[in-house]
């Protein structure tokens, strides 16, 4: 098994960029799990429409934030460990399936922390159990997400 990348290196390799990047920091990273955080900007444009006068973060973006942490970033780490860091740039991770439920709201400006735990990583498909919490520990979303590395 190849030497792993640092959390900073993994973060830099997550291909998403503004305005569709929902990962600020990787707090913990291991072969079985990741913890990553993101603060939703108070002035993000989507709050204008979701919903006028009552801004809440769209659930699909919570899923995306959990996927960028628990599937993409963790997947980059695992691929680098399995096949070497040079392989990471040759693939891009696409969503394959999801089973998610929501238990709370994320308001503009709030920071969320996602924990992703690997269920399996085979043939470049990663399935992870994910859980997103607010800073006070409230669970806002949880479930299972999967993605697969495909050639760029």
């Amino acid at each position, binding site marked *: 098994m190849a030497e792993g990348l640092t959390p900073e290196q993994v973060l830099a390799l997550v291909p998403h960029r503004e305005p569709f990047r929902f990962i600020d920091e990787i707090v913990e990273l291991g072969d079985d799990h990741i913890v990553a955080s993101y603060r939703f900007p108070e002035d993000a444009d989507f709050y204008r429409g979701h919903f006028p006068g009552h801004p809440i973060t769209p659930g699909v973006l919570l899923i995306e934030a959990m996927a960028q942490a628990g599937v993409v970033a963790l997947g980059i780490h695992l691929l680098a460990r399995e096949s070497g860091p040079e392989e990471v740039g040759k693939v891009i991770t696409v969503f*394959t*399936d999801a089973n998610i439920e929501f238990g709370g709201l994320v308001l503009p400006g709030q920071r969320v922390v996602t924990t992703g735990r690997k269920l*399996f990583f*085979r*043939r470049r*498909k990663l399935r992870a159990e994910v859980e997103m919490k607010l800073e006070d520990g409230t669970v806002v979303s949880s479930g299972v997400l*999967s993605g*697969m590395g495909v050639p760029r």
Partner: protein
Amino acid sequence: MEQSEVMERVVKILTPWAKNPDALESVGMDTNILEDLKVNSARLVDVVIAFEDDFDIEIADEDVDTVNTVGDAVRLILSKKG
């Protein structure tokens, strides 16, 4: 283990992922898992893990590449069960 029993269990495992019920009705050893049953290719890993759990075997990634039809899966499983 009889081939017919393996076949029955393989089809049962594939059923939730098969998007073509007509092909499932007339499934046979030559039925192609992706093209005929319309199983999403991204689900192949799920299918393989389900085979491993159900039959208590290990399937190497190289072996997965040889599986195209239901019969390929049945033969692979039979070879692993000895």
